[in-house]
Structures are given as C-alpha cells and as structure tokens.
C-alpha cells in the first residue's frame, strides 16, 4: 500500500466502464437491431428453385409438336476451383481457352463464393462425357433444366420460341420470374405462357459459407414442389402443316387453313420458315442474329403480319354485298367487251372478252367488267350520295373482319387496311367523288391490305354461309379441355344466307367447270369451291392468291394460300390449296407425279443480283409486305388486268 492507493479505483473504474461499453454495444446489436438476424438467414438459406417442366404442345390429334429435352447448366463456385487441366476441360465442353478465361473471369466478377452459370445448356451427349470427369474439377457442378425440342421441326412461327426473361419481363411479372428463367417470346409459347410455364417449386436449403448444401431447412417443411405446365392441344394438324411447309419450300408466302365449323386453325404456314430447334441451346444467339438479318425474313409471321391487296378473291365479297344491298340479283347480267369504262378514255381491262355474264359466271371467269359495274351500282346508284354509298359498302366489308384484327391467340397480329371515305375526300379535296375514283376496290386492288388469315376467314365465312368462328390456335387447354367461350360464338357478317348460294356456285365453277380460272386444281370426288386472285405487285412479279373451301356441302376446310411473285392465282396458290385439301380430306395425294413435283421443286425466291437479268432484281419486297400500294389514281388503274 502506498500513496497511490486510490488509483486502483481509477483503474477498476476504467475496466468497468469499458465492460459497460461492450455490453451496451452487444445489447444494441443482439437485442435492439434485428437486421443481423435477417442477414444470418440470408447467409445460410438458399432458395433453390425447382424448374417445372413446361407444358407440352400437341397437335389436334394428340401428336407431339413440342416436347422437353433435358440439358445441363454447368455451374461454378470460383473459390472452390483448384488448378486443373483446362485444355481437357475445354475440349470436353467444347469451348476454347479464350472463352474459358472470359467465362471464368465473369464468374469471379459475379462472386467468388457463390455459384453462377459457367456454361449454359450442355446437351445430354456433352454432359455424359463430362460427367465422368466432373470429380476432377472441384468447384464445378451441374444442374439440369429442360429446353424445348421440336421433333418435326415444323410450325416455327406458330409455336414461337422461349428465351430468357428480360428485365422488363421480370418487372412486369411482379417478381414471378427470376433472372435466368425462360419465358415464351413469340407464338403460342408467348400467348399461352401462363398455362405452359407451370408453377415453380422451391427448396429451402441451408448452406455453409462455401455454399455447400447442409440439408433442408426445417426438414423441408417450407419446400414446395414444382407443378408442370398444362398441356396444350393446339388446333394444328401436324400432317397438314408438314405437307404445307414442304409445298412452300423455296417460295415466299403463307398458308392458313381453318376448320369452318369451329374456327380452329388447321395449318399455319409462313414461308420461308426456319427450324425451331435453332432457337434452342447454346447456338441460339448466333442463330437468332442470322435469322434476324436474313433478307427473306423467316421470323416474319406472314399469315398474320403480311398485308396484301386481296386481288380478285375480293370479288366474292363484292358479289355478296351487291346482293345484300339489293342492287344485283343472281341473274343480273353485265356485258363485258374486254374492259370496264368508268370515265376517261381507258378501261379497267379484262383479260378476255367475256361477253354477257350472270353472277356465278362472273366469278367463274373473274370478270373485271362485271365487278366494275357492281361496284358502281353500290357506290353511285345506291339511291344515296356516292360517299354515303361508299360508307355503306365499307361497313359491309368491315363485317368480314377486314381492316381489323381477328384477335387470334398469337402476338403481333396486324389489322390490315380498309380505306375510309375521308381518305378519298381528302385526296380529291371534295366529297363529290364517285366509284370511278377508286374503282380498283371493285376487284380487290388499290388501298386494301388483307392478311392471309383474314382471307382464310372470309373463305370460312362463305363456307358457313354467313358467319365465322373466331380463328384460334388452341383446341383445348389442359386436362379439362377448356375452350374459351368467345371461340364458340358465331360472328355473322350481315349477309343473308340465300345470297351465298349463287356465289358458291360460281366458286365451284371456278374449280370444276370450264372455263373456270382454277380448273387445273380440281380433284375427283371433292367439290372445291374457290376463287383465284392475281395481286398486282408494284415491286415485282404478281402474287399468286387462292382461297377456297371444301367440300361444298358441310365444308371441312377453308383455306387461303398466298405465293408471293407466283404470278397467276391458278399457277401456284390454287394447286397448293388443292393438294392440301385433298391431303386433309383423304389423307393422301392421288395426283400425277409431275403435278406434285412441279410444286415441290418450284423456286420463286427472288433471284440473286448476279443473275443475268436485264432489269435489276427488285428487293425482296414480298417480305416487306407492308405493301401499301401507291394510291391508285384513276389513270394507273387502266393497266389492271383481271384473271
């Protein structure tokens, strides 16, 4: 004991004070601040998603169009990787050293401690070889997922494809999707995404600091299982679709076939097409770019996105409306002297001098003069001002769902073009114009844009004698075979049933009776009712168009075929439609060999520029199809031909 004895209290005081500071701090982080508890949970809990199998897509008879195939994502945890033979590794998974380094650096940048995808979608074959050596590469492991596989490689535009979700998809879904999930990007995959995707399951795993699994949290009480996506029975007929795609090889255009009694789409061909399997797997990005820059635009969904003036098939609508307005009767005759004179000195020509025709014959021979007269009657002699006559006519056409979307269950449908009276009023700076100012509408030329789907729908409407069911791609959904109610509703087009018979008679004569425009496409035993069209193409050769239904009574199929740059409707479009009808109704093709081969071998693609052709080849306009034809002034129409 000495004079400094009291200093013991200072020192003990300091000890106690420091201990109190420690306790206060401990009290704060342990009892008051709850964020550490959450962080500890974050550390140790891993929500491992269990990916559900995506729903299968079948054709109408139950054949598989899209199925799933297992692939393997190679994951890496950089911290656990030990030196190994990288060359052997690269060889096994099929990448080079540069790519390896890049990928590895990327993984390190993401995180040293947690796993990230090193290489996506190893195929089962690659995985099999790699799996045996996997133990040599600590830090790497494999998770399996499934990707789409298309056994027949058909119907690419119809089925669409899936891809990784974008940031926007994630945002829009309100957190349903996570980075790396797949989502339908186009086609049926997109429009039925919510049914096909299924329900993701989750496993709450506990992991240690090195992300090694340490078992299920709470013995798996909070785990959920994945629910597979619903199977989708599409309306497509696989055989018909396949045959249609074969027929359209090396041609640009579309085929749409509809079952008139249900609105179900039987075939949906967009040509040129691509192999949907290209949009799957590790080469997807490369393939996508290639397809996207292809001048023939295989990704363009022609049946719903390409708009064409319909050409002469439009005469069917004008014939129906003319009767409905009471301006013509089945026996109304007009005389054709080789053209229709609507003012000025030059006529809207016919290819032949048809003489006097009644309604049915006018369709059979596709007489322009007849329809010039019918159109003039509807506009100029309707008992009202021509502009009001036009309005009534336009309303009638619009009821056939022309100029508006059919709201088919595919994304990106275009509505086409049906001009309004104000277009002409503006153009002629007065509403005192008459039928002669837009006479080309009488024969389906001019300011009209109709998609192949709309054409097929008109054929189905005629087949049904006055109504249509909304065309759709899906026959039934899931186990319960659910059908949306809107698909069972009849949509009437405002033309009485009795007015159809003479038109159908004419359409039958087109195919089955000389001098019909498509007698080359007649089939023994099946009465096809159709109408050819030859669509004026200001950019190149005319487009070959044909729409039809068969058989005449109790029709089973309505079809529209467009072959760009195919010339006359009867040369390409009609035979293709005829072959498909036969295939669908009899499940066979009993034609001469050359008949089929001519079509299979026919090449109507735009010729390459080096071709020794005097005139430079036009751009593959066909693909652009936005083809707003230049406003047809009355003078220009003089060169129109009928077919």
């Amino acid at each position, binding site marked *: 004991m000495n004079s400094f004895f009291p200093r013991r209290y200072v020192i003990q005081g300091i000890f106690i004070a420091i201990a109190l500071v420690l306790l206060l701090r*401990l*009290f704060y982080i342990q009892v008051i601040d709850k964020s550490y508890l959450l*962080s500890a949970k974050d550390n140790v809990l891993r929500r491992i998603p269990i990916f559900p199998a995506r729903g299968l897509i079948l054709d109408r008879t139950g054949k598989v169009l899209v199925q799933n195939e297992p692939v393997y994502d190679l994951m890496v945890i950089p911290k656990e990787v030990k030196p190994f033979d990288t060359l052997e590794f690269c060889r096994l998974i099929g990448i080079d050293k540069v790519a390896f380094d890049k990928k590895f650096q990327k993984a390190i940048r993401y995180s040293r401690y947690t796993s990230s995808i090193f290489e996506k979608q190893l195929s089962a074959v690659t995985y099999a070889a790699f799996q045996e050596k996997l133990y040599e590469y600590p830090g790497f492991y494999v998770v399996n997922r499934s990707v789409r596989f298309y056994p027949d490689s058909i119907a690419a535009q119809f089925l669409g494809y899936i891809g990784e979700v974008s940031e926007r998809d994630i945002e829009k879904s309100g957190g349903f999707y996570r980075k790396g999930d797949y989502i339908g990007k186009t086609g049926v995959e997109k429009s039925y995404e919510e049914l096909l995707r299924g329900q993701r399951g989750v496993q709450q795993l506990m992991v240690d600091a090195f992300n090694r699994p340490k078992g299920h949290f709470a013995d798996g009480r909070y785990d959920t299982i994945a629910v597979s996506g619903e199977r989708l029975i599409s309306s497509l007929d696989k055989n018909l679709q396949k045959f249609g795609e074969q027929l359209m090889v090396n041609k640009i255009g579309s085929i749409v076939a509809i079952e008139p009694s249900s609105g179900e789409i039987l075939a949906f061909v967009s040509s040129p097409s691509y192999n949907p399997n290209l949009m799957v797997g590790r080469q997807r990005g490369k393939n996508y770019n290639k397809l996207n820059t292809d001048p023939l635009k295989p990704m363009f969904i022609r049946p719903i996105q390409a708009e064409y003036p319909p050409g002469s098939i439009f005469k069917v609508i004008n014939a129906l409306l003319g009767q409905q307005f009471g301006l013509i009767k089945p026996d109304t005759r007009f005389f054709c002297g080789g053209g229709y004179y609507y003012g000025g000195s030059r006529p809207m020509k016919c290819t032949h001098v048809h003489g006097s025709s009644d309604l049915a014959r006018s369709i059979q021979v596709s007489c322009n003069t007849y329809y010039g007269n019918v159109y003039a009657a509807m506009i100029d002699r309707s008992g009202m001002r021509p502009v009001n006559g036009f309005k009534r006519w336009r309303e009638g056409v619009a009821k056939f769902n022309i100029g508006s979307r059919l709201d088919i269950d595919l994304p990106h449908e275009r509505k086409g073009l049906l001009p309004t009276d104000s277009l002409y009023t503006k153009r002629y700076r007065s509403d005192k114009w008459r039928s002669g100012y837009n006479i080309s509408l009488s024969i389906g030329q001019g300011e009209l844009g109709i998609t192949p789907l709309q054409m097929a729908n008109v054929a189905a409407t005629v087949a049904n004698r006055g109504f249509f069911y909304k065309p759709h791609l899906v026959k039934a959904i899931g186990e319960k075979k659910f059908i949306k109610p809107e698909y069972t509703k009849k949509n009437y087009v405002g033309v009485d049933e009795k007015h159809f018979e003479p038109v159908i008679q004419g359409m039958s004569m087109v195919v089955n009776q000389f001098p019909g425009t498509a007698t080359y496409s007649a089939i023994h035993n099946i009465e096809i009712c159709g109408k050819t069209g030859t669509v004026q193409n200001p950019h190149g050769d005319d487009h070959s168009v044909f729409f039809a239904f068969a058989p005449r009574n109790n029709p089973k199929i309505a079809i529209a075929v467009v072959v760009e740059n195919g010339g006359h409707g009867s040369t390409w479009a009609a035979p293709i439609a005829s072959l498909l009808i036969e295939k669908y109704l009899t499940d066979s093709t009993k034609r001469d060999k050359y008949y089929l081969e001519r079509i299979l071998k026919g090449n109507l693609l735009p010729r390459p520029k080096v071709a020794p052709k005097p005139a430079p080849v036009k751009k593959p306009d066909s693909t652009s199809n936005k083809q707003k034809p230049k406003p047809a002034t009355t003078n220009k129409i003089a060169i129109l031909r009928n077919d």
Partner: protein
Amino acid sequence: MINQRSLFFNIDWIIIFIYVALCVIGWFNIHAAVYDPQNPSIVDLDTNYGKQLLFIVTALILGAVILLLDNKFFNAFSPIFYGVTLILLVVVLFVGRNVGGNQAWIPIGSFRLQPSEFAKFSTCLLLAKYLSSTNLKLQDFQTLLICGLILVIPTALIMLQPDTGSALTFTSLIFVLYREGLSGYTLVIGALFIALFVLTLLYSTWIVAGLLIAVAAVLIASNKKNRSFITTIAIGTVISIIFIFCVDFAYNSILQSHQRNRIDVILGKIHDPRGEGYNLNQSKIAIGSGGLWGKGYLQGTQTKYDFVPEQSTDFIFCTVGEEWGFAGSFVVIALYVTLLIRIINLAERQRSAFTRVYGYGVASILFFHFFINIGMTIGLVPVIGIPLPFISYGGSSLISFTILLFIFLKLDSNRMGVI
C-alpha cells in the same frame, strides 16, 4: 508451517473458479465452432476441441507445478526469464516458422513455441522486480527510462515478426506505471492522442490541425493572464500538430495495407462486406443474430457453417454471442470483470510491492486482450489478431495465460510471508 507446503494453501478460490469456468466455456464453444453434425464425437484428439481438452489438462498441471514452486523463485529469476525471452524473440526471427505472415513460432518437435506469449509474463515479472526495488520514484527520468526500456525491447522485437497485435499488448502496462506513480495526465494525454489519431484518420490532417489551433486560441483567450498556462497550451498544440502529421505519415507509410483497411472498416471509411470487411461483417451477423437468449448450443448457423473465419481462435466470441445470446455474452463479460477486479483487489492487499506490480501487470494484460478481442468482434475496435484469454483455442495462448495468472496466485498465496 507444514500447511504452507500444501499445494492449495491460501489460494484464492474465486480466481480459480473463474479460471476454470472460462476454460470450460471456451471448450464448449470451440466444440460448437468446429462442430460437424456428420461426426459428432465429443472427445477426439484430431479435432480442435479434443486438442483443447488436452491443452486445458496440461495447463492445469502446469498451474499446479507453479503453485508448488518456491515463491522467491519468480522474483529472483525474473531477469533470467526476461533474458531468455529476449533471446528467444531474437532466435525466432531467424529460425521461426512463418504462420499467417508472422514469424512467431519456434518448432520444437511437434510442439510450437510462441516466444511472444512468454514475453508477457516475463516482462511483467521484470517490471515488477524493478519497480519494487526501494527508493524509486516514477517521476524520475532515469526510472521512467528504464521502465520504458523494459517494455520497449520485447515490443520492438515482436514488431519485427511482425505481430502487431501481441506488440500492442504491452501498451496496456501503462496502467501498471500509472498505479505506481506515473502522472495521471499520462492517461489523459494517452486518451487525447487516441482521439486525435481517430480524428486525423476520419477527417483531413489540415482540418484537425485547424480545429486544434482554434481550441487553443479559445483557451488562451479565456485565460490571458496565466503565462504558464499559455505556454503549456502552446507547446501542447505544437506537439499535437506534429503528432497529427506523424499519424498521417505512419498511417500511409508504415502500416501495412491490411492494417489500414481494418482501421478504415471500423471507421466506416470503406464498406466492403465481401472483401476487407468480410470477417467483421460475418462476426457481427453471428453475434447480432443471437438475440437475447441465443440460438442454443450447436444451433448457431453462422459459426456451424463456417461463415466466420478464425472462429475457434480469435473470433471465438462469435460462437458465444450467437449460441448463447446477450445473456451468455453478459455472463462471459461479467466473469472477466469479476476476475479483473478480483486481481486488483488481491494485488492491493499485498505487502510485497513485487506482487502488487505483477498483479497489476496481469490485470492489464488480461484486460487488454479481453477488451480488444470482444471489441473487434462487435466492430468497436479494428481487427487485431489476439486471443480471448482462456477461451480461444490454442495451446500457446492458454498455457501462457495460465502461467501469467498462476504465478500471481502463487505470489498471492504467500502474501503473509516476507520476501
């Protein structure tokens, strides 16, 4: 007098109890820290907790041996202990094994000797011997110089390893000097310098210097007439400013980058929970997630699944905090505080100045480890790699702390005797 020969004669049982309690707590927490559910055996000499059991037994035997030794032994031999320690500290620089960047270990067979651990008690002993010699006044410059040398030589040698954590331990002996008569201002000035150090690192040198001058100006203005006061303030300000620039220089040029980073993490200047701040962040998560009552024995996910590095050695307190919660932490801290208060109470009841000084040395060193170690796990002080006495895993540290404490117990047991 036969009784006095008895091993446990006059032993302070409170300290023994706390010592054993801390060792047992340590052992259970080491078990929890390295617990492997797949291999849940309690005693297995291949595991850390198995080895620790062996160390505890060894330490107890060693403690008993110390109690058996003659009292005069420690006083008489303290210069020799000190000398041997210094030799070992030099030797380790040449033949030592480098573990974790520190040249701190001398391998002897399968055992590894850590001379810096022994420097703690040998320095305390020599300091006690010197300060207990008669007619010394700590106010004398010569006395201060010798005390300073006793402390600085081992500190400098340990710095050469470089083991900053162990070296810093010796600063705690300032409490001993204070108790023995060093001016109370020393502590205040020490605290001020620490404050200045932190301020300098947090803000720019120039701002702190400006602040100092402003404070000095205010003080002088308020007390214009007192000349000596003005002189003191002026000198103090100049020294402080020099110090600030030294800090700046030392911080940027002398400290190693990982040390700089640890300080920056504590000061909140860098936020990097995945890199530099990883240890501290995970440590805080472990302790913070313990809540009031803890997750329960062997239930700590942070420690069980290896999120906290060094968790059985320097970060053992994480396991305590996570599995036993605030309640467990409180018990551990209370045990330490009781031990420290008890040691000082015992030291003050000695007749012998030697024992008293040594007792203060023991208390100071234990306090420093206790404060720095727990403080770093909860983010109050920078990460400094020193063990938590009696609890952290490790033979060298357990045995050296045991020697440190048991020498004091032995000296205390003989308080009635005359040296």
